[in-house]
Every structure is written in structure tokens, then in C-alpha cells.
């Protein structure tokens, strides 16, 4: 794991705590544009977020972002990523946790930790087709229920598919 220079001591502390506790589960740490980001093993996601929430005080989920990488990112990377943007108040710090996923691979739902994730996970499920294990109510949120396909995947045509046509 490449060492990362972080010029903010509070974020450095977060990194040290995580690396100390989980070590190998942290696949990659990056620090760019003053934003700290961890890529972690999918299996340890809940444990890591739990630690961030309870010990490090990252008490709010800011956003969840789904990614579909058009080209393989390199060794060991998978097609999809889910980004968790966390917040700490007071202190007003942000960290980002990333998990990589393959087609059809499920990731643990973080709703038990952050209630705000409920709709965000539905959105990512809708847009990318990433299933979240343990989510109570995993339905499409934007698209109609009978819609076929996941619009934000890179192989989904911009003009839409036949499922976009209104069935009247």
C-alpha cells in the first residue's frame, strides 16, 4: 500500500486509526484535493463504517455515489464502485470510502448504520443494478418498476432503450 502524504493532522489520525485496526482490509488510500479516500474490501465495509461512525465520530452520511468504470482500472479492480461520502460534525471533516463490485455482486446495506442511506441505496440499485444485501425495501426509486435496464451504466444508450418508450 503506497503511503499517502496528508497535510491535515485530523485526517491523518483517521487514516492511522483505520490502518491500525483493519490493515489489510484497506486496499488503497488516496488523498487528493484535500479529500481523504479509502478503498476497502467489500467484506469489511460495515465494520469499517461502524468504526468510523462510533470511534471516529463520522456521524452523518453525506452521499452515496455509484460508478461504472468504462475501462478496467487496473489490477484487482472491478467494474462498479460504490462511494460513501461521510461527514463528521462537529469538526466538519469528510472522508470517502470506496468498495469495488462486480456485475451482480451484492454489497452489505448500511441502512442499520446510516438511515440516510435508504433512498441512496435504492437510487444506486435503480441506476446501476447493484444489489444491497439486507436492504428492507430495495425497489426502483426513479424509474418505473417494470423498467428494464439500469440507466447510468455506461452500456446503456443515451437515447434510451425500448423500455423507455411509454406503454400506453
Amino acid at each position: 500500500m503506497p503511503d499517502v502524504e496528508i497535510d491535515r493532522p485530523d485526517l491523518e489520525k483517521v487514516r492511522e486509526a483505520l490502518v491500525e485496526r483493519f490493515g489489510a482490509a484497506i486496499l488503497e488510500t488516496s488523498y487528493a484535493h484535500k479529500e481523504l479516500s479509502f478503498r476497502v474490501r467489500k467484506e469489511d465495509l460495515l465494520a469499517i463504517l461502524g468504526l468510523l461512525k462510533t470511534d471516529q465520530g463520522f456521524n452523518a452520511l453525506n452521499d452515496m455515489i455509484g460508478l461504472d468504470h468504462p475501462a478496467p482500472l487496473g489490477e484487482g479492480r472491478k467494474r462498479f464502485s460504490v462511494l460513501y461520502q461521510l461527514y463528521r460534525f462537529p469538526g466538519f471533516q469528510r472522508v470517502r470510502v470506496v468498495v469495488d463490485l462486480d456485475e451482480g455482486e451484492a454489497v452489505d446495506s448500511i441502512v442499520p448504520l446510516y438511515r440516510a442511506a435508504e433512498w441512496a441505496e435504492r437510487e444506486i440499485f435503480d441506476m446501476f443494478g447493484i444489489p444491497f444485501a439486507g436492504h428492507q425495501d430495495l425497489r426502483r426509486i426513479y424509474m418505473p418498476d417494470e423498467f428494464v435496464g439500469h440507466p447510468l451504466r455506461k452500456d446503456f444508450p443515451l437515447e434510451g432503450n425500448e423500455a423507455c418508450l411509454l406503454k400506453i
Partner: protein
Amino acid sequence: MGPQHPSTHGVLRLKVSVDNELVLKIEPVVGYLHRGMEKLWESLTYAQVVPMTDRLDYIAAVSNNLAFVLAVEKLMGLEIPKRAQYIRVILAEIQRLASHLAWLGFMANDIGAISVLLFGFEDREDFLDILEIYAGGRLTVHGLRIGGVPYDLDEALIALIRKSLDDLPKKIKDIETLLTKNRIWRHRTEGIGLISAAEAIEYGLTGPALRASGVAWDIRKDIPYSSYQDFDFEVPVLRGGDVYDRYLVRLEEIRQSTRIIRQALDKLPAGEIMAKVPRVLKIPAGEVFHSIEAPKGELGFYVRSNGTDKPERVKMKSPSFINLQSLPLMCRGNLFSDIVGILGSLDIVLGEIDK
């Protein structure tokens, strides 16, 4: 309720189970306005995305512009001239005033004070006029560009802004007489739609709704962007967590915004209004998340670039989307009539929720 209903602020559908008038369960159904913005942005250049962001929160277009533009500039590592930063602040605060005044009208109308709808809109008109004079658009302003602002503020416009700001307190006072002290208004709002600070954080609530629950969290203050650190303003915080407090917080924010605009006008530095930006914008690969304090809450953009002139992925963190999620929580134990009031107090815009 909805998607066609007189008070749903757009096309929102609420599945409501009621026992006579008591709300048992409420489930918002969104997506009626989904336009696939995020997909569309992947096929546009960065400059072309900016006017598209106007269409998200169409009540506060400049705030959307600002959030996206700042995110892209952060990714480029671009330094913006001070004058442009100040003009951005002025525009964003004018937009906040316009948004809050529109909200005030909607909210009052939801509770049944039909006149205040018109008063709020009339006051907002002043600020829309300013935006129209500045950039030619009233709602979809397209008032900012990557690298700065497209136009400079001239003396006439500054005078107009000052005049509008001077007129505002009197107008707000009239509205306050009609609402703040009115017993019916207080009955309808006090103790309604309660949410505690812990719950608010848990549900990711941001903006005035969070501040009304007692959490002092304003990105303008805590993680300043675009020179907000230069201005002296207060962040109104109330502890009640009900509709009335959200209303008071927004009214106070209107006053604070006028303070910020005045200071920015006074201190407006001379200089360039655009940084050097190449005609064809190729942004180095990377990812960035930047958020600002929009009128409705924290508005963030995640921008991921792959080195070409088009973004690989833009994700918007819309405050309304997150705030709406807590509606079922706020509505527990309240009456059917309160749903509209609580929904109004959240200040949601469906263009932003559905993207």
C-alpha cells in the same frame, strides 16, 4: 396525495395511510420528473453542463451553478479572481433570498394564507429582476461560468441591489405581522413535524431544517468557499425542530443574507472577473466532491474526470432528496392537514430530487 395535487410542490406522490385524520404511514414516491440528468451530463462538455444545472433546483439556479462550478474548479486547481468570488457570493445570496421568499409564499399558501403567497412572490420578483438584468434569465439564470462570472456588476445594478435590500425589511415585517404572531399560524406550525438533532443527523438532514433542530452547521461558515470567510454573518440556530422554527430560521437567514450582500457590495474588490480558462476545457483525471450551502441545504457535486473534455461521472447530492427522506419520520402522529405544512417546511424542489 399527488402526483397532481395543489400543494405538492411539483410532481411528488405521497402514499398516505390515515386513520380518519391521523397519519399512520406515509411513503413518498418520487421519480415523476426524472430526466436522466446525470446520464446526460456524461455526454456534455463541462461548460455545457453548467446551464443544465439550472434545471435541477429551478428555484435557486445560481446555487446549482456555483456548486458545480466550484467542484470543477477544485478539480482543475483553478484560482478564481477575488472580484469574481465576491460577485458569486452576491449572486448566490440574492438567489437564496429569492428562494426563501418563494418558499415563504408556498409555505403560507399550504397553510392557507393565500395572500402571503402573493406577497412572497412579489418580494422575490425584485431579486429575480436583478438576476434578469445581470444574466438575462430569471429562473434558469446560467449566471456563472467555469473560471469566474460572465458579466461584471455595474453601478446601476449595484444601486438597484441596494435599493431592493433596503425595501426588504419592511416587506418582511408585514409578512411577519400576518404570520409570525398570528395564532392560527402558530397553532399550525408549533410542535408540528418534530425532529430531534440526533435524528436529523441520522437522516442526513441539512440546511435550515437541520439548523432548526439545533445543529449549527452551515458550510458557508464551517468550510468556507468562494470567500465566505471574509464576511461577518450569523448562522441562525433554533432548538425546536418543528415547522415554526424552520420558518423562523429561514426568515433570519433572509436577514443574514442581506447583511452578506451589503458587505460584499461594500468590499467589492477591483480586478478580473474571469480566470484564464482554455477554450476547450480538458480537465486532469481525478475525482472531487464539493458541496456548498444552497438555500435548501447542502448541495454537493461529485465530479470524476478521465482527462477528456467531458466528465466521466457527475453525481449530485441534492438536499431535497435527502431531506424528503425524513418526511415519514416528521409526520408520525400528526394530522393529515399537517402533511402539507411539514412538506412545505422542508422546502423541497422536485427538479432536484428527481434530477
